[in-house]
């Protein structure tokens, strides 16, 4: 028997491809956003509401990840934004290789903001780097104030946590303060925005933050001004 020291991160194979994706996005001047949540928290609705506010001044594209169907990419295309659908079959998360394959067929040249909507799942996507610049997590208030403690990893790895469906607080019996405190305890660095993509409440603060973080390219802005 021979013992061979390895000391290799199991995530390395995925991370290597994620880094290639990241290099490509940077070379294209594209800010890639990995959008994650449990099923039904409102990722696609938040995306639609965000695109409606931001699309006039930004070039936006979307990669949709789902187990089955192209319902979500059709919803995005209905807004006049190009979308690419990845159907994972039974895989519960997107990985860097799936995204690399997608961008080989769906060029991101000239795109300011590329949203990558992950498969709805509160656990698995958190461990898979896709090469994104930002991780945005959508959590819907009715899911319960204790969830950040029960599923800490995804909250922990997010740069932004959007607390969606705040219009349902009176019916859900969930304390926004308690939920917010639990988010901060597992991720003190996250930017947290309570929103309702249905009523539009809080959307200005989130989209304003995004505009500050990601600037559309200057040349395109000048061109628009000249028109």
């Amino acid at each position, binding site marked *: *028997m*021979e013992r*061979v020291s390895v*000391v290799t991160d199991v995530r390395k194979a995925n991370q290597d491809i994620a880094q290639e994706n990241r290099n490509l996005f940077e070379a294209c001047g594209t800010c890639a956003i990995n959008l994650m949540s449990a099923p039904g928290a409102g990722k696609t609705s938040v995306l639609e509401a965000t695109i409606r506010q931001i699309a006039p001044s930004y070039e936006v594209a979307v990669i949709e990840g789902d187990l089955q169907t192209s319902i979500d990419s059709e919803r995005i295309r209905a807004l006049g934004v190009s979308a690419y659908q990845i159907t994972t079959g039974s895989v519960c998360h997107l990985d860097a290789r799936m995204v690399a394959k997608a961008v080989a067929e769906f060029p991101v040249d000239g795109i300011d903001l590329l949203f990558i909507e992950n498969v709805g799942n509160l656990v698995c996507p958190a*461990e898979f780097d896709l090469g994104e610049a930002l991780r945005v997590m959508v959590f819907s208030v009715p899911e319960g104030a204790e969830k950040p403690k029960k599923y800490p990893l*995804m909250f922990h790895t997010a740069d932004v946590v959007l607390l969606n469906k705040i219009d349902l607080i009176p019916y859900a019996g969930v304390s926004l303060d308690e939920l917010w405190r639990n988010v901060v*305890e*597992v991720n*003190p660095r996250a930017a947290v925005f309570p929103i309702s993509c249905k009523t539009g409440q809080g959307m200005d603060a989130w989209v304003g933050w995004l505009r500050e973080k990601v600037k559309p390219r200057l040349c395109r802005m000048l061109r628009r001004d000249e028109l």
Partner: protein
Amino acid sequence: MHELSVAESILNIAVTQAQNHDAPAIERIKLRLGEFTGVVREALEFAFEVARQGTPAELAVLEIEIIPLRTKCPNCGCTDKPAGDFCLLCERCGQPVEILSGREMEVEFVDLAEALELTKRST
């Protein structure tokens, strides 16, 4: 059930080592697994049993060492583990703490069978 992808990644790392060392089989794979990862030990062990079939690790033992979550406060230096429920604010001063360990998911070593040993055993 992403433990299956994790098990496949572990096997890829181990099988590459076996190939590089011309070893016919893998006897043991040692994994260091942080407490603060999205991997459930039991699910990973089950996924490993499924994924190893038909590979040189078919009879290999997956040895898992759980690495506890340890943190340090950059403000006051407190290194107490956050109380129970993954609170990443310092117990003493309330500032965000840094994670020292608990995020590991790494193959530490593999034990490879030598060609001769295998022949000996089969006779």
